[in-house]
């Protein structure tokens, strides 16, 4: 209780889990995403419009994190991988079995285009003192996920605020 463990303290401000996307940004997933929300924006469906406005096809900006979620299975991984690993590291290191994301800010820079190979890293910005909320007792943390393209250009930053906690009744629950 009280102060942060050293193993969490050393994570703060340090780029972690630098990782290249396992495949190139591709049109099939852009269609799947647009289809799931019935997004008819011609930027994603009409090559001529995309060419005239954006100099070629682009991906919906909000798909940033989609390019990094691991496949549910692949031959070279034995355990299911978790996106936003820092979030799960914090739950483990702080012994907080439950966690929710309370807010999420995405900032968009260079457009992401089919054929791009993106790289990401995660930076833990802060961990709060212990707080008591209606969910339980725990800590808030802020994690930034930074995305670059293959030319080293910044394409986006996601900032997540998470709250890891123990329930008063300690009856298990979701990750």
């Amino acid at each position, binding site marked *: 209780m009280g102060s942060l463990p050293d193993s969490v303290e050393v994570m703060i401000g340090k780029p972690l889990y630098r990782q290249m996307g396992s495949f190139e940004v591709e049109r099939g997933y852009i269609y799947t995403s647009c289809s*799931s929300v019935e997004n008819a924006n011609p930027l994603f469906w009409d090559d001529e419009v995309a060419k005239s406005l954006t100099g070629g096809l682009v991906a919906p*900006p909000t*798909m940033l994190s989609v390019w990094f979620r691991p496949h549910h299975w692949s031959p070279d991984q034995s355990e299911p991988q978790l996106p936003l690993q820092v979030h799960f590291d914090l739950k483990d290191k702080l012994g907080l079995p439950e966690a929710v994301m309370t807010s999420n800010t995405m900032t968009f*820079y260079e457009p992401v285009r089919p054929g791009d190979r993106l790289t990401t890293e995660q930076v833990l910005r802060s961990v709060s003192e212990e707080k008591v909320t209606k969910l339980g007792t725990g800590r808030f943390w802020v994690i930034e996920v930074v995305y670059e393209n293959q030319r080293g250009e910044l394409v986006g930053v996601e900032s997540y605020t998470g709250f890891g906690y123990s329930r008063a009744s300690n009856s*298990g*629950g979701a990750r």
Partner: protein
Amino acid sequence: MSFESRVLGDTQVGDELDELVYLVTPTTVVLGALASRDYRPMHHDKDFAVNRNGVRDIFLNTPNQAAWFERYVTDWTGPAGRLGRMTFQMKGSVFPGDSMVFSGSVTSVEVDEVGCGWVTLAVTLTVGDEIKTTCEVKVALGVDDRDNPWERRGERWKP
């Protein structure tokens, strides 16, 4: 060109966006989860959602909600509208059977120091009288017919 886009002069603080109403089905939730490559069971397995999460059904995941907000905003701006920044606050889950209502209003209209036109929108996703998610969106519009936000790079793009 076969599309129209809003420019900055078309809008002012207090303008309301047309509502978007959409009836969520289990397919909406599962399709949205798979489209965002989110395979966690509470977005496709009702038994898990009910018995592990203690909620009444599977529910929409956050990245897919982001895609819904993007669609809602760019339906209004047209394709020249370019998202700069989105901030969400999740307040409650959206389940199959819910009728999602997206609504929004313009909270600021400005031109920044590099000449980029920005509109800030306060967007909410409600079900019945319950606010499920609020989203503040900063989106760039052309300052006139000749200005295209998508051509801005580097120092000329400050989202």
